[in-house]
């Protein structure tokens, strides 16, 4: 460990050309000047409900000054925010740029800021995960000469890990961040990105399919397209290459459990079989019993959550839980081996949906499964055996209302089928089909 305190985000911006735009119409010099004059050390701060451009200013202003920065996702309710503030020991909230100017100095010396992100989760209480600027920017490219002139579009929520990666890449790579308001409808956001000359854009496959449906998408001057968070299918990769012939198309595989990731840029779904022998970016890969196992062969012990490694085998491999198939010279992703259903990038546990359905008096037995969707990758389906005496006619409608009250939209079965008896294994367990 070095004795030198790592540079703050504000200090790291000094590597950029002062005249380069950080945000459209905002030069690096102007941004840096706008965050001068704050106390050198302030207590923990919860950032909430900031539009993306203000959010970026607040990050630059407070990293290296605040003890902690909690990035509250938009729409987080007041009680949850208060809970975040208590758990991360934050005394202040910043909801507008005005609030920044009123933060009081705290005693003691400034130390590297702890960045606190909430894990996704719409119904269960989100976990808070601590990071530092150094850990968040481990894979950020910081060659500002190469990054000059690139215009990164932000479609993700910047308070989440994937969105924050885009923000930090634009800032530290010498590029410009285009961040249309998250609450605006997608066609408007895509129009704004096209108008502002977006060259680099990252989104989930589900979001890319929606982007391609917007009238303005054809005029995006894209040079780099990144897909992550879900399986990228061949049809989508082909469509992106055809629509944006100038762009390099990369799909990312990342395992948060193992703290590793690599990207595939040959325009084909899955990854080349030779990666099993030649680890891409130091990520060793194995296929065992139809599942992908990964091991980071570099910087061992450097990742957050490393101590929580009971699932590591003797050779250090971690089960990603992804079902894969080796077909010819490719390894293809099939879905989650555990039966977790990925609906447009959001995870659904079938057991949870089954429990909700079983709580309805008209349901005797239920099996929740999935059906492939060309739009969201998968949809939740349910096969229901009505309880004796249940009015089958009204049951579907009742179950819909029941699920709407208790489940998030992506968790609700999109298709409900009423059937006689469900298949059981010899041990009496529900037969659950693994992803197709």
């Amino acid at each position, binding site marked *: 460990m070095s004795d030198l305190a790592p540079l703050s985000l504000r200090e790291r911006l000094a590597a950029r050309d002062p005249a380069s735009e950080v945000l459209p119409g905002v030069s690096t010099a102007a941004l840096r000047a706008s965050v001068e004059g704050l106390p050198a050390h302030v207590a923990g701060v919860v950032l909430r409900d900031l539009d993306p451009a203000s959010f970026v200013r607040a990050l630059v202003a407070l990293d290296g000054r605040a003890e902690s920065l909690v990035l509250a996702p938009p729409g987080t309710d007041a009680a949850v925010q208060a809970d975040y503030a208590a758990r991360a020991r934050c005394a202040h909230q910043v909801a507008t740029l005005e609030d920044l100017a009123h933060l009081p100095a705290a005693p003691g010396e400034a130390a590297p800021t702890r960045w606190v992100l909430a894990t996704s989760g719409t119904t269960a209480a989100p976990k808070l995960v601590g990071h530092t600027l150094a850990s968040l920017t481990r894979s950020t490219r910081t060659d500002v000469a190469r990054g000059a002139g690139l215009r990164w579009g932000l479609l993700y929520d910047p308070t989440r890990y994937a969105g924050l990666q885009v923000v930090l890449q634009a800032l530290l790579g010498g590029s410009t961040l285009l961040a249309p308001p998250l609450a605006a409808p997608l066609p408007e956001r895509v129009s704004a990105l096209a108008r502002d000359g977006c060259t680099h854009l990252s989104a989930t496959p*589900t979001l890319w399919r929606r982007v391609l*449906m*917007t009238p303005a998408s054809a005029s995006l001057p894209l040079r780099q397209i990144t897909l992550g968070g879900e399986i990228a299918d061949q049809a989508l990769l*082909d*469509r992106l290459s055809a629509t944006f012939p100038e762009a390099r198309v990369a799909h990312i595989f990342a395992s948060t459990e193992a703290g590793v990731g690599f990207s595939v840029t040959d325009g084909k779904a899955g990854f080349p079989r030779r990666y099993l022998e030649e680890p891409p970016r130091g990520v060793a890969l194995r296929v065992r019993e139809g599942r992908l196992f990964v091991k980071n062969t570099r910087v061992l012990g450097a990742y957050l959550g490393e101590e929580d490694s009971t699932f590591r085998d003797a050779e250090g491999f971690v089960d990603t839980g992804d079902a894969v198939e080796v077909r010819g010279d490719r390894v293809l992703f099939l879905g989650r081996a555990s039966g977790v259903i990925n609906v447009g990038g959001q995870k659904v546990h079938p057991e949870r949906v089954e429990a909700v359905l079983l709580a309805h008096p008209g349901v005797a037995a239920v099996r929740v499964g999935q059906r492939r*969707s*060309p739009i*969201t990758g998968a949809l939740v389906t349910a096969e229901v055996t009505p309880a004796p005496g249940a009015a089958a006619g009204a049951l579907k409608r009742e179950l819909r209302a029941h699920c709407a009250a208790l489940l998030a939209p992506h968790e609700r079965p*999109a298709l409900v089928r009423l059937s006689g008896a469900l298949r059981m294994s010899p041990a009496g367990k529900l037969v659950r089909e693994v992803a197709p």
Partner: protein
Amino acid sequence: MIRSTLTQVFTEVFEEHAGGEAPALADASVLLETGLDSLGFAILVTRLEDELGFDPFTEAADAVYPRTFGELVAFYEAHAPSLRETA
């Protein structure tokens, strides 16, 4: 036939998923501006597959992303199995 099925299933899914009264659809209606999100759109495509017996998004060799209701209808019509095959 396909147009009326699309309109009817769209209305059903909209009312269930987005809530409220479904907007009137014209050929020029931009799908993403109707208020149906991608999950709603995914449900629409799946219900239509059950209703019509085919899913052009999966059958088309190339992924196509219709932007307006008119394009969606044309897309389904272009990929409909011929009457002879379904008879």
